[in-house]
């Protein structure tokens, strides 16, 4: 038995609802498993308007002439592609456009059913009065094509006059061999009844109850001794492993019915030192009267180079391919752009403006697995009627005191980012770990900041 009540009031034929659902299923299959039609493409046709046998072949575009779905006239493939370039079909053209021949499905009279994966012919289009449907699936992946066809047939054959009847099609391949389509195959898997409840945590079910639960989920199951025989039909291509069956048992049982129990595991938590230290430094900076900001990791190429008067710096930045906007061109190599943009957007705040951020930057690094590396940076900014250089310098001294570090000093730098004579590198031991200074007016102009700014930025990792 099909498991469906024979007195179910189903009317043979498509209703508006089932028709819309039929279209929607094809759209979803196209998008997901069909990977936007690039792997699998579906064409459905009114069988009464066409005549088999059907041919799946390919022709040079100018030789393809038919009236495409929803167009008024017959046109060649190049002509219809010109129209499609301007509408929702544009993304699918590139799948075949570079080929010298386009795929075509025609019937015995030469009527074009479809030009996969782009468009069907108007001639065979399906309407609410359609009584017989022909489904063709073309693909680059045979297994996926099978899954798609099985899914459509499994979902819609219930609307047939005799529900769940499908007429098979014999396909003759290029080498002359034949096979029957769709497969609509089932497989029988055997699972240990005791094992099937291990993941769900259902302790109270008997093998018979498990079989019932699975059958409810359209996985027809029966008890065979200590095992469960489960029929996995053509609508269940998602069953890859026993765990997929176990999930269905849990769903049928009801997730909300599963009794909760705490894992009986005693562990002592360990934090990441860099995060623990970062949080402590953040608190210290807030205690010093600075306001925390949280800005974006992605920014434009110019933000980390030209706008800071260090054009060559873009070479060290990780670049995004095909960014949608210039705000997504690179991953930031310094926290300054976000800091300056925040200052620019908050002009109504009382002065002086004192901001800080402790966050990751990313740079290229040939020694790591991906060729990139994160560094934890500390950045502070002072903006006011005067530059506040001595304030950020004082902040540096304060933070070093809080990190219990004495072995540091600052020395003048001619880094073009800073106002001449007002920039310095921060040296820990003998290594430069950061810098501070008054920003050059050209930098301020690039970020649309109208007040003098002093900044401090250094790498926190050496202190972890």
């Amino acid at each position, binding site marked *: 038995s099909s498991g469906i009540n024979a007195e179910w009031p189903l009317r043979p034929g498509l209703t508006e609802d089932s028709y819309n659902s039929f279209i929607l299923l094809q759209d979803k299959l196209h998008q997901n498993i069909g990977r936007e039609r690039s792997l699998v493409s579906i064409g459905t046709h009114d069988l009464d308007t066409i005549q088999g046998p059907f041919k799946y072949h390919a022709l040079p575009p100018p030789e393809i002439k038919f009236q495409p779905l929803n167009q008024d006239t017959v046109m060649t493939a190049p002509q219809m592609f010109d129209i499609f370039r301007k509408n929702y079909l544009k993304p699918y053209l590139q799948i075949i456009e570079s080929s010298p021949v386009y795929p075509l499905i025609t019937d015995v009279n030469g009527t074009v059913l479809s030009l996969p994966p782009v468009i069907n012919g108007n001639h065979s289009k399906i309407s609410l009065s359609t009584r017989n449907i022909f489904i063709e699936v073309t693909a680059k992946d045979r297994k996926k094509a099978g899954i798609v066809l099985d899914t459509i047939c499994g979902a819609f054959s219930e609307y047939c006059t005799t529900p769940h009847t499908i007429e098979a099609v014999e396909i003759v391949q290029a080498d002359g061999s034949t096979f029957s389509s769709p497969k609509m195959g089932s497989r029988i898997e055997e699972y240990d009844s005791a094992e099937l409840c291990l993941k769900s945590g259902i302790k109270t079910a008997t093998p018979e109850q498990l079989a019932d639960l699975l059958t409810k989920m359209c996985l027809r199951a029966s008890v065979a001794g200590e095992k469960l025989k489960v029929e996995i039909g053509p609508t269940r291509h998602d069953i890859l492993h026993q765990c997929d069956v176990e999930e269905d048992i849990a769903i049928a049982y009801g997730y909300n019915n599963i009794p909760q129990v705490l894992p009986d595991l005693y562990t002592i*938590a360990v934090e990441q030192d860099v995060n623990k230290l970062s949080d402590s430094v953040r608190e210290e900076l807030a205690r010093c009267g600075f306001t925390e900001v949280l800005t974006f990791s992605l920014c434009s190429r110019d933000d980390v180079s030209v706008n800071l008067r260090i054009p060559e710096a873009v070479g060290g930045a990780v670049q995004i391919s095909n960014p949608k906007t210039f705000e997504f061109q690179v991953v930031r190599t310094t926290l300054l752009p976000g800091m300056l943009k925040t200052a620019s957007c908050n002009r109504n705040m009382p002065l002086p403006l004192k901001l800080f951020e402790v966050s990751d930057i990313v740079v290229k690094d040939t020694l790591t697995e991906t060729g990139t590396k994160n560094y934890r940076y500390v950045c502070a900014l002072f903006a006011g009627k005067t530059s506040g250089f001595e304030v950020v310098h004082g902040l540096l001294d304060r933070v070093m005191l809080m990190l219990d570090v004495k072995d540091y000093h600052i020395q003048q730098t001619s880094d073009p980012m800073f106002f001449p004579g007002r920039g310095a590198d921060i040296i820990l031991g003998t290594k430069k770990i950061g810098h501070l200074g008054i920003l050059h007016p050209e930098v301020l102009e690039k970020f649309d900041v109208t007040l003098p700014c002093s900044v401090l930025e250094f790498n926190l990792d050496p202190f972890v």
Partner: protein
Amino acid sequence: MSLDQVILNTLSEQKEIDSLIFASENGLDHQKLVGAIKSLLSLPKEYIKAEQKQISVWELTDEGKSFVANGSYEFVLYSAVTKDGILQKELMKMPNAKIGFSKAMTLGWLVIDKKHEDGPTVFRKVDDATDVVKTMLEDINTQKKVDEKKIQDLKKRKLITPVVTKFYLVTKGTSFNTQIERPEADLTADMLQDGSWKEKSFKEYNFKAKGAPITSGYLHPLLKVRTEYRRIFLDMGFSEMPTNKFVENGFWNFDALFQPQQHPARDAHDTFFISNPEMTDASKLPADYLEKVKSTHENGGYGSTGYNYDWKISEAQKNILRTHTTAVSARMLYKLAQQEEFRPVKMFSIDRVFRNETLDATHLAEFHQIEGLVADRNLTLGHLIGILYAFFKKLGIEKLKFKPAYNPYTEPSMEIFSYHPGLKKWVEIGNSGMFRPEMLLPMGIPKDVNVIAWGLSLERPTMIKYGINNIRELIGHKVNLNMVQENPICRLNKV
């Protein structure tokens, strides 16, 4: 010397001050004197007593004032008549002639010759006239006494008008002193020092006004929430995973998680791909494990049918911005599996992830993901539900509901819902599941070990908690710093 002081000094020498008289005698503005009297009355101690009185005083109207300046109408008219007389009709052309002529006639200053050969002519009747009215008005102006009857005449002519003036009779008060003691605003160190606080009086404090604004530093609201979530995990014994690695490769972000290479999520419209450096060097990926991953995707094994497609190493090598911190979880589980003996663990992470999706009011290209996982032998969904209840209880959420869900790398999978009393509906608060065997077994995780995991975003509960509708008001450079500075202490378990 201030007027206050003048009044006090005067009272020390005389019994009473009449404010009107005093002002007049000393050339003071009476209104200012009254002001000083009122100021003294407002002091907390009774320096003076003041009895309010009023008198009526005659004041000149504007017309009256013009009489003082220019002479009365009748006098002006009289002065215009010369020895030879003046035609009446000429005379009547002068301003205010009607009244002036009538009065001049009544006073007997002028006479008309109606029979004159040129027409009716006016002659002086007296040689000299005195402008009595003007003199009377001048007297009134300088407060000299004027005959009562004459005053009524002037009033009738609307040259004067009565004005009520309030004045004060000021005498010494019970706390009279020529030294004014002003009340203090504040208690000072000096007052404590010399004990003078005992004698001083203090101003009323305005308890209805706000206090002085305190300058401070501030932590970011989202990171305050992050601190709380971190605490919750640490309190529950979860160790922190190292997530300071934004760039991942397809292998750890997708393949190791058994997410097939043809899955739509691996497309450029969902994932940020890196153009430089574009690929991970294949030799830097663990070779044996990589082979196992490839074979599991292609042909299954470990009890799985696999996906039956051609797995390409080039897809695994592609560098991307990680789409989830589950990539880190995969790395950690692999490391765990390489140890001699399996040790159960509880781990968490909270860090940034990147999605190349359509941006809108609640979605940005980068956000923070929270992830927790437990790896132990014989864990079940019951344990997952149990630990979720414990976790969310710390967020003040006591009742959860679970719905089936789908993730490529977990099976079973559950969506987690809680009832939001403010919104009056069940809202999704997270996603969870058990990692698939195809993910764990190739790593070398023992067969009886199950790994339960759950995740949620940091931004969403923060936005719900603080009533923020647009995510750009919470993170990024457009955030209003006032919001940061006024954001209260984060108490996650208080709704």
